[in-house]
């Protein structure tokens, strides 16, 4: 096993471990911290797999913006004081079986993918290459995505305004 292979398995273990911790915690702030760790691991994985640009973006967008937003909401509403109902074991059993089945399928598919056995080469896509590719081949999609971002911005603004004058809004609607 090369050094890079070794790094890959360590990073994979970090990702799986922290994600598993995240999905089982009760305290939402802890969940967010574990997930940040998981995304950080994912960023390292991306760097390892030759996508430095995406690695940094993953940290900036996922860990730095999205998760902070979650943390913000959790802290603002003080969710940690709310009890979450955990269903009894017999209700979770079918879900677990199904999950196992799902995972089994996914792993089988992973093995059955063409070229799955080949070891991955060490290549890196510099930001410049990625940018040239994206803006060359997918400029239209970029426009669509930017439109989507604009729409989301306006939607959120509107939702925010609704909170402020709910009564007035209801009346006019």
């Amino acid at each position: 096993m090369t050094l890079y292979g070794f790094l890959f398995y360590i990073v994979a273990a970090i990702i799986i471990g922290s994600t598993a911790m995240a999905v089982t915690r009760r305290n939402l702030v802890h969940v967010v911290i574990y997930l940040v760790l998981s995304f950080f691991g994912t960023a390292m994985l991306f760097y390892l797999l030759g996508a430095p640009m995406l690695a940094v973006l993953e940290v900036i967008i996922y860990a730095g913006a999205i998760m902070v937003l979650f943390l913000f909401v959790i802290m603002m509403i003080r969710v940690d004081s709310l009890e979450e109902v955990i269903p009894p074991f017999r209700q979770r059993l079918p879900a677990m079986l199904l999950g196992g089945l799902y995972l089994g399928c996914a792993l089988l598919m992973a093995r059955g993918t063409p070229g799955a056995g080949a070891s991955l080469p060490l290549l890196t896509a510099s930001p410049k290459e990625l940018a040239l590719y994206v803006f060359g081949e997918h400029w239209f999609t970029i426009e669509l995505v930017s439109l989507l971002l604009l729409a989301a911005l306006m939607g959120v603004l509107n939702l925010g305004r609704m909170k402020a004058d709910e009564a007035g809004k209801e009346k006019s609607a």
Partner: protein
Amino acid sequence: MLTWIAGFIVLVVKLVAILFFLLMAAAYLVWVERKFLARLQLRYGPNRAGKFGLLQPLADVVKMLTKEDVVPDGADRVIFRLAPAVVAGTAFLMFAVVPLGRDLTLFGRSVPLVVTDLNVGLLFAFAMSSLGVYGIALGGWASNSKYALLGSIRGAAQMISYELSLGLSIVPIVMLAGSFSMVDIVNAQKGLPFIFVQPLAFVIFVISAMAETKRIPFDLPEAENELNAGYHTEYSGMRFGLFFLGEYVTMMVFGGLVAVLFLGGWRGPWLPPFVWLVIKILLVAVFMIWVRGTLPRVRWDQLMTIGWKALLPLALLNVIVTGALGLIMSP
């Protein structure tokens, strides 16, 4: 194998050197600030420990290390202890991509004077700065105190808001340099520092950087007359020291970023490159201190208005204008 070991040793040396430099610089920046602020307010400032109070930083370190380390009742102990380290750690990591001088030639091999020349260096610095929010948000939350929580919510909101204009203000720089790598950006300023090409970006960047470092006039997360000390109300001893350290290191780092992005990095006549860089960083830091001594604190709504309604649109406009000019002027 030998190359590998040599590379490793060089790396360790670089790390230790940078760490030492940053710690010392941060400590003496505190001294500079106290002295300079005192002069602005017609006082003397620290003058008991050593000549001109030059040993004051050391005395402060000793004081902090020997103070009792209190963890408040009902606090989330692990997170409480972790948060200051996040603030200080991310600040240190940001410096890893700042180039300190031109490449050295040691024993026949070229050693770049930067911890690591990432091709996404600039974005890396931003990633670290965005992770720094966690230290503040979690530290305040884990303290289980009203003031701290309010301070951390303010801090998180402020940092998220200003990160946008901070990031957008440097897009024109990246366009001009054609790279995210700090080394390339410095090299692109061989002729003219970018401050002359992009004055608007410079202004936006500096204002956002001051907000990111949570310094007066943007120090609402720790506004002492409203929130005691904000997110670090409950901290004492060296944990408080880490927050403190983090703040000054961040100041240094942003000084470094301003120097690299707008002032030509280590480039300059006559003096050695590293000295030039330190001078430029100090210039920015002194400017920040001067602002602190001069301006009053803004109100919360003013802070948000400045960020979202003034800096952000201006930064976007700057991006568009630069892009358009670039398109027109390119052959």
